[in-house]
């Protein structure tokens, strides 16, 4: 390999890193304890350097897919063979977002989210948290776009169903009060 090739390879790698590091760090932070995230991200970029010829122009989904495999393979005390799952904002952490979800709705969302299967949480998170398109998310999960769209649709149905009990709870409470009065 010529020095010119080396230079081009290095420039591309640095460019990919600069463009994707923040998103990749957030992707990993959503799925492992914060103290572990930088280790995982570092491993992903090592893999990207070794396989730079395989990294597509839209590098982010490819890197996310490598990160998922890396996290799944990394058995530390925090993982201990549990399925890879998406974390939530802890109750004592500041909630991000645009503030349109009030505290009560957030509790309902939190409860509904926790009731879902990890697979459903993952497809929802890829869109809602990671901001991927269906095609990009399909790349991350290693499935066809049509398959991802179907899985997303089903996950959203289950999310809505999980939110329903909370939605009807005020009505149920009113009925209970009527019965008590």
């Amino acid at each position, binding site marked *: 390999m010529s020095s010119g090739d080396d230079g081009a390879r290095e420039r591309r790698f640095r460019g990919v890193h600069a463009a994707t590091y*923040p998103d990749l760090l957030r992707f990993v932070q*959503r799925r492992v304890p914060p103290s572990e995230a*930088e280790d995982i991200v*570092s491993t992903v*970029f*090592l893999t990207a350097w070794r396989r730079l010829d395989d990294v597509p122009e839209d590098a982010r989904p490819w890197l996310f897919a490598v990160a998922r495999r890396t996290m799944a393979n990394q058995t530390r005390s925090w993982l201990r063979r549990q399925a890879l799952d998406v974390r939530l904002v802890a109750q004592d952490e500041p909630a991000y977002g645009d503030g349109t979800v009030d505290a009560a709705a957030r509790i309902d*969302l939190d409860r509904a*989210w926790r009731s879902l299967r990890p697979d459903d949480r993952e497809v*929802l998170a890829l869109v809602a948290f990671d901001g991927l398109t269906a095609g990009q998310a399909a790349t991350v999960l290693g499935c066809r776009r049509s398959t991802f769209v179907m899985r997303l649709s089903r996950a959203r149905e289950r999310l809505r169903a999980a939110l329903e009990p909370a939605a009807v709870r005020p009505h149920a409470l009113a009925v209970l009060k009527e019965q008590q009065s």
Partner: protein
Amino acid sequence: MKDLEQLAALDPAGGHEPTPAEWARANALVDRIVEGGATAHAAPARRPATRRWAVGLVAAGAAAVVGAVTVPSLLPGSMDRALASWTPVPGSLTGEQVMPQARRCAESGVGSDPAAPVSPSDVLLAEQRGAATLLIQQRGAGVIECMSVDGGRPAALALADGPLPPPAAGTVNVETRSSVGDGDDQYSNVVGLVGPSVTGVDLVLADGRTVQTSTRGGWWAAWWPGPEGGEIGSITVLVHHTAGTSTHRIEDL
């Protein structure tokens, strides 16, 4: 899509931008990766593609100027050399023999006490598999694992910040296990504590390979080519002790 938009309220990383320190560590890693890659290009003798090697586990220390960062993987050039020379039976080394590596591991800044002095007695376990040296090393009150290849830049990982209770007599535990990499570059690592009267620990992998681990200083450790460290049901642990040998699924330890 309102339901998906609402979910953003639960995002644990939403709005988080890398801090200047995170950027500094990330950019330092890129520099090291590029540097290691150039080394790999200069050494074109790679293993045959059909052979499956692996490299030890690991984590690299960051440049001191940007603080400690762990990278659970060897840099590319080092990885190739470690993979190509791996042996299933390790050689045992003394603390005196590995003081150069131990000093470089300490300089990586990994561990809860990065300024602690280094002495041969701090090396709890040292093994050699081909070009790779693996250390379990006391750093102040804590313990780190560190791997280096051909005396190059080490990769270190914090194992404990303070004393750990030993397992019961004749038993071992697993403190950490993992696999790193893809395809033929994948490798596994296991580290644990040994209880009194344990005389040795062997691993039998799902494909029938046996890996002899190193046991010394209250610890056992091994690394090997392959993905088993991150899998379920792929590793059987044989614990040799003064009363015989016991067999365990690694998930049970």
